């Protein structure tokens, strides 16, 4: 019999009205019918409602911690509020065993007119600590917050960092069996953050179950063993924290990819005899001597499929259909790659790759580039294409955003270190201890260590 669980959520769902007017109307209606003793079926959507959280189930054991991930509006905060007893679920149930502490926007109930010390007592009472508990732990709280003599000045004179430190310090002393944390770890300086993480690990060792909501991969990975990825209110992925973080990063890349696609003009644009714009600034342009109609991305193995997601490290094959209208001497074909936050992170150029074409006559062509190896980091990328000519320092044709693709997170590696990195560098690490250098006149090792 498994009796070790602290949270058991079964099929939790919660719906909201899209507009304030709807919510108000439904809220009044539901309340009135409840007062009249009628049961309102809550498991169906009425018009103008949506599921903020839909059918979420999970179980958490003692000392385990769950990272709740998802893009903005995916239902994380709503789920946390259900777990904290603020919202009642519309469907399903959750059982919480133990005292629940919540670090949701720390410093709830802080009054700016009161001193830090007075606020400790107010805030502590809100978190379920009595006056005697706080008296006993006051020194510990003051040491944790580490704001010195400011403790006796009004909180309205505090910096925002000091407010959060004080709030966290009070919350830290509650020692609950279940701790819910919503995006509050990214505060304070490095020392304070380290203190927070140390504290959370100590709680975990003592058996506290933690649920952490964060957009920070680093914070989730530092604390959590399990992950739950929500998307549009539903569980997209759950399991080990690494797997869920991978799914989260792939989901993010996929969404970014969707955005770049949306911003591209509809196909058909500039396909016929429309004159190409001859200036830069647009997405497409050129002299009209050559026009590229379509650029597709595939892999060497899965060539021809329209799937634009590639495995990490997988080969890339680019194909472009080209319409040459007047003959071109010494043409050069070039593709460049934009990452999410940076432009031109990679390029592949026919001249650089030793393709020396003399002249191409008018006609239709298929241009193909096989890239057998690449080490782009997981994420979404945009491909730009240009046709140039040797001896002319301008484009005959350019197309920004000709295609886009996504590099998936590898199964065998966990790439968490830097979300903005674009290129993966493989490397072998080794750590060897230096032999102690005996320099004449230097102090003995022991005394140096002391000073």
């Amino acid at each position, binding site marked *: 019999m498994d009796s070790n669980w602290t949270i058991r959520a079964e099929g939790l769902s919660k719906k909201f009205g899209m507009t304030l007017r709807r919510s108000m109307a439904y809220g009044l209606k539901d309340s009135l019918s409840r007062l009249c003793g009628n049961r309102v079926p809550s498991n169906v959507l009425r018009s103008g409602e949506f599921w903020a959280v839909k059918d979420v189930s999970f179980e958490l054991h003692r000392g385990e911690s769950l990272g709740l991930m998802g893009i903005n509006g995916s239902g994380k905060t709503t789920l946390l509020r259900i777990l904290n007893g603020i919202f009642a679920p519309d469907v399903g149930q959750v*059982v919480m065993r133990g005292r629940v502490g919540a670090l949701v926007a720390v410093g709830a109930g802080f009054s700016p007119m009161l001193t830090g010390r007075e606020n400790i007592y107010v805030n502590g009472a809100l978190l379920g600590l009595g006056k005697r508990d706080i008296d006993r732990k006051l020194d510990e709280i003051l040491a944790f917050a580490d704001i010195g003599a400011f403790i006796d000045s009004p909180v309205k004179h505090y910096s925002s960092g000091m407010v959060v430190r004080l709030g966290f310090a009070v919350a830290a002393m509650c020692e609950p069996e279940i701790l819910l944390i919503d995006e509050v770890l990214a505060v304070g300086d490095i020392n304070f953050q380290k203190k927070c993480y140390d504290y959370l690990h100590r709680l975990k060792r003592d058996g506290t179950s933690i649920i952490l909501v964060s957009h920070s991969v680093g914070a989730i990975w530092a604390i959590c063993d399990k992950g739950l990825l929500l998307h549009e209110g539903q569980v997209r992925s759950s399991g080990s924290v690494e797997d869920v973080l991978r799914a989260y990063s792939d989901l993010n890349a996929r969404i970014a990819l969707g955005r770049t696609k949306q911003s591209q003009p509809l196909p058909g644009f500039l396909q016929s005899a429309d004159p190409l714009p001859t200036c830069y600034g647009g997405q497409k342009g050129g002299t009209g001597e050559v026009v590229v109609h379509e650029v597709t991305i595939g892999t060497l193995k899965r060539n021809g499929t329209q799937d634009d997601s590639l495995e990490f490290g997988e080969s890339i094959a680019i194909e472009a259909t080209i319409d040459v209208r007047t003959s071109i001497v010494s043409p050069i074909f070039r593709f460049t790659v934009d990452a999410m936050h940076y432009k031109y992170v990679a390029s592949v150029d026919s001249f650089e790759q030793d393709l020396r074409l003399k002249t191409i006559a008018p006609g239709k062509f298929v241009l193909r580039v096989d890239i057998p190896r690449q080490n782009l980091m997981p994420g979404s990328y945009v491909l730009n294409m240009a046709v140039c000519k040797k001896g002319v320092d301008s484009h005959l044709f350019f197309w920004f955003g000709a295609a886009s693709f996504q590099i998936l997170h590898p199964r065998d590696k966990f790439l968490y270190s830097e979300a903005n990195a674009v290129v993966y560098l493989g490397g072998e690490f080794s750590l060897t201890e230096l032999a102690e250098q005996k320099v004449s006149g230097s102090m003995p090792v022991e005394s140096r260590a002391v000073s």
Partner: protein
Amino acid sequence: MNPIQSTYELPVRVYTSCVQKTSIVSSLVQVVREIWMTREVVWRLFLRDFTVQFRQKVLGYLWAFLGPLIGMASFLFLNYSGILNPGELTIPYPLYLFLGMTLWGFFTGVIGVVSGGLLTHGDLVLRTSIPKIALALAGTGNVVYVQLVNLVILMILCGTVGIVPSWWALTVPLMVLPLIALAVGIGLVFSVIGALARDVTAMSTTVLNLMMFLTPVAYVPKFANRYLQNIIMFNPLSHLIEAPRNVFLRGTIEEPTAFVISSLFGFLILILGAHAFYLTQDKVAERL
């Protein structure tokens, strides 16, 4: 100390879709339990608001005195100018009026803080799991304080006009309870409705102003007109205010039966209000 030593002693909370307890009795049990559980929080919130107000204002709690005094001034003006005839009085009108205004102010003050409590503490409703009833009732401490201040004024007033209250005046705090119960009950209903539809609170203020003129606050409940007399008779507020006032001044209740019935009505409204609050409180957090 290890926070987890034995699993079976841990509090277990279940949050489900259905409203679990629907009987009035269980609502009442829950009210008592949750208020007892949160007594310290309520006390802290009272202390907080109390000190903050004291620090923020130049006149501090002098405002508590000024409010009823200004309210009284208008009635005194009407009285001295001959427009308002309060009826036959054996005691000076200012004293009679002050007692009535104080009791009425207690009633409306409690309705005001209880009905606005959830909105005032919206932040805490959304961020902490403190029972909502505690947040709704947290403001009543302040009203009680204001009434204690009024008591001091009353003593000064009695001294000035040379009237010694009867010994029965000591029972007034008990006699006021039904009035407070009625106010809390109404306030609880307004607090949930007010959180769902914001204009209800504004509406209730207007209605309360009307109610004041249908209640013998500023005049003696004796009318030649039968309809008016009936309205006063069947208005429970009349008895809930008249009885404490008479006990304070003369040590007697003129219509004990009506007072008992009105008191029962007050407690009934309290119970129904608390029940309604429990039935609908989970809808409140969503609409804040």
